[in-house]
């Protein structure tokens, strides 16, 4: 009975999941790359300051970028070797950033549990260690963890986001299935830091194995909440609505309703950082797509180039489109020379046959976008406003509350890139400039090299 299952109230869409290719593939280590390019900007906030120079020898986990202010995060080397270059590169999310290039040399380190008695640490000490390990939110928002888990007010609930509603991606699913015990330990650490009254894990009900394992290993630390499989169940606000039946007021942050949301991968990183004293220099990445010979869930070192990773996974034919993240909110890449960062949860590749570029047609007022919107906005009316350059009217009917989930663009039969307009319009509003429609960056299916 789908209707009785918990889920967010408004809208949402049912997506083709495409998870079957990787959801039963065990987590394995990706081959250590010969060289990595580690961006210094892998988080929101200021980029880290480089603390190494060309020619320096580094080890795995050596600090190479020091955080610049509270909203920044430390960056560590992901392979042992020598710094051979510093330059500029585009992050997977099209942000320009400095990078440090390291060439592999030496031996891989084996990490052992050092602090099995982490319980002796104080709350602040734990936070300090998380901060030093450079942990950020690994669901994609990349908000520095030591800030996120230090809310200014005491909180009621710790909500763990295991929904993973994006198609193709299965890393959280695998983590929950294989590392339930470790995750429980990570949750205990967070519990000590946050001291919440209740802990829930929201998991979409298509992850049967994960739910089973979590429940088996819960030890009454947390409660597993199966959720309706519906996009965007993993949106922070939607998850809160689904599990706790409260709405986060417009413009507010979750802690204002007494909730902190944590991502599965982040919890695992915290577990490793506290018990192994291992900084965040590798993460789980799902590599998937029909043309991938060995799709799977890989432990990939940060800074590995997509090119190298795909080479290791073997492609049948050359890809025509590479997406970092899930296909709903991920970014398509200009080049495969882009490094994996802390926020990259998946790499999805499409062949030329699989991408069909559809021209935008006029809105036929079918109302599907409105019915799909999990926030309850009128995407087509906002689109109309934006297209006559009336950003203020769009703002009045809720443009700023758009979570940019893309459900509206997905469902639109006229193939209007609604969410793209909303992102541009929000940026314009923020910068207080008002561009006419033809100046709003309408990224159309251009080819690499032709347009910037």
């Amino acid at each position, binding site marked *: 009975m789908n209707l009785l299952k918990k889920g967010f109230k*408004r809208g949402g869409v049912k997506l*083709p999941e495409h998870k079957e290719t990787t959801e039963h593939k065990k987590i394995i280590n990706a081959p250590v790359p010969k060289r990595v390019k580690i961006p210094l900007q892998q988080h929101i906030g200021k980029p880290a300051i480089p603390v190494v120079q060309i020619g320096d020898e580094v080890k795995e986990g050596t600090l190479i970028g020091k955080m610049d202010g509270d909203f920044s995060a430390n960056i560590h080397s992901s392979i042992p070797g020598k710094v051979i270059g510093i330059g500029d590169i585009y992050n997977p999310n099209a942000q320009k950033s400095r990078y440090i290039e390291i060439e592999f040399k030496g031996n891989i380190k084996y990490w052992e549990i050092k602090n099995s008695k982490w319980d002796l640490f104080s709350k602040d000490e734990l936070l300090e260690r998380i901060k030093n390990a450079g942990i950020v939110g690994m669901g994609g928002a990349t908000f520095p963890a030591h800030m996120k888990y230090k809310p200014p007010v005491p909180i009621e609930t710790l909500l763990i986001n295991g929904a993973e509603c994006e*198609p193709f991606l299965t890393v959280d699913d695998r983590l929950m299935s294989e590392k339930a015990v470790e995750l429980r330990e990570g949750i205990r650490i967070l519990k000590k830091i946050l001291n919440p009254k209740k802990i829930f894990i929201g998991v979409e009900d298509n992850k049967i194995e994960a739910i089973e394992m979590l429940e088996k290993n819960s030890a009454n630390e947390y409660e597993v909440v199966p959720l309706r499989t519906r996009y965007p169940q993993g949106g922070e*606000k939607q998850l809160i*609505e689904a599990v706790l039946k409260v*709405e*986060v*007021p*417009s*413009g507010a942050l979750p802690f204002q309703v007494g909730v902190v949301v944590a991502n599965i991968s982040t919890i695992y990183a915290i577990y490793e950082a506290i018990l192994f004293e291992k900084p965040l220099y590798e993460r789980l990445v799902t590599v998937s797509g029909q043309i991938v010979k060995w799709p799977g869930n890989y432990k990939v070192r940060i800074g590995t180039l997509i090119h190298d990773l*795909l*080479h290791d996974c073997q*492609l049948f034919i*050359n*890809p*025509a*489109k*590479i*997406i970092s993240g899930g*296909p*709903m*909110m*991920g*970014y*398509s890449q*200009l*080049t*495969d020379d882009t490094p994996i960062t802390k926020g990259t949860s998946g790499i999805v590749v499409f062949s030329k046959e699989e*991408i069909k*570029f*559809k021209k935008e*047609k*006029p809105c*036929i*007022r*079918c*109302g599907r976008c*409105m019915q799909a919107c*999990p*926030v*309850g*906005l*009128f995407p*087509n*009316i906002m689109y109309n406003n934006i297209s006559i350059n009336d950003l203020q009217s769009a703002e009045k009917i*809720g443009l700023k*509350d758009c979570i940019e989930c893309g459900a509206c*663009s*997905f469902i639109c*039969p*006229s193939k209007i*890139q609604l*969410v793209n307009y909303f992102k541009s319009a929000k940026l314009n509003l923020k910068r207080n400039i008002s561009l006419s429609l033809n100046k709003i960056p309408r*990224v*159309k*299916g*251009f*080819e*690499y*090299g032709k347009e910037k």
Partner: protein
Amino acid sequence: MEKKNKLFVDPSPHIHHYDSVSKIMWIVFISLLPAAAWGVFYFGLPALNVILASVFTCLITEAVFSVWRKNSWKLIGDGSAAVTGILLAFTLPPYVPLYVPITGSFFAIGIVKQLFGGIGFNIMNPALAGRVFVMFAWVGAMTSTAFFIPQADQSFYYKDNEKSAITLEAISSATPLGMLKNYISGKISSPIPDYKDMTSDDSVIDGIPASFPKSLFESEILDNQDKNNQTALLNLYQLDSSQTEYQLKKDLSSNEKETLKQILNISKKEKSSASLLYYKSYTKDLFLGKAGGSIGEVSVLFIFLGGLWLLKRRYIYWHIPAVFIGSVAALTFLYALSKNLILVPEYGAVKNAFLFAYLHVLSGGLILGAFYMATDMITTPLTLKGQIIMSFGIGFLTFIIRIFGGYPEGVMFAILLMELLVPFIDKMSKPKIYGWKNNE
């Protein structure tokens, strides 16, 4: 994998729903084809001509205007013009001269749709607007060709007096809705069609009808006669060439007339049972699509099935037809009950009211309107709440126009009127936005 590999870049999301506008439109078009086929089968080639003229004019007009508005003529491929064409044809009588569908389609696509900015910008359903346009533009052609005369009568009269118009009164009294309306207002005394009204004088000889629809003649009347009468009748009536009705064979002697009158019991006293017989066969015909009407109206069954298919594919929402049909049914039922309307004396008040509601729901293109016109995405509110408000409004207006207004028909005007209110309904039926207090 070599370098300098060309990669496509576009904004998220990178997957899309498989439905596209053209797919939706063509499937709507296909869902209308069975009903069109039935219309052609039932009315013959003239109906096919009307449909083709209408669809092709729509396509051509769309192409011409698209080019004029600096778009590609290929826009007609999205199928919306074809849907407009077939829907417009469905609302027309089958025997109209072809300039009626042609001008109607031109008006629908050229004026109502393209001049307002093309697909998505029209504020009225083009097919309906085109229909109303031809109704006023070609009053003569539209009325002389009659909407509601069943095929049997139609072919009979049409052949005889090709051009001479049957008067509007005669026709509207032949439509069940018009007839009911006249009956309620006291213009006619009996709630069944008086065949005398419909026929020119020489087709009724001393009160003996010159023709009967086959079903009425065979199954119902003869059942009540004994064998001798049956033989006598069959001696005097014969099936006409189209096999749909019985016609008098020859001039009758006064003796024969007397016998016939006796057999047929055409007298005031017998009216009651005649009306029972009439409604029994009529209600069945209505659903199966044998009751006459415009091209698309005849086949309630096929329209209904087509609509169900669209519902299943989620191209239309069930709320609209359900609320629309439900509100018309409920209102007419209550009205008949309150008026204590008696159509068939043998039935009780409730059953009569039910019959009245049934007739209203199944005739006059209401099913076509409910599944295909009121659900037109472009001209319906965006939210479910708005759609429910709108379809109730349509049902209510249909009821008002049909019962109290000047026309026996109300669906078209009701839909067009409510479409004008859509922007207002949209404003009133905003959903609550996440995290907002009272949408402030």
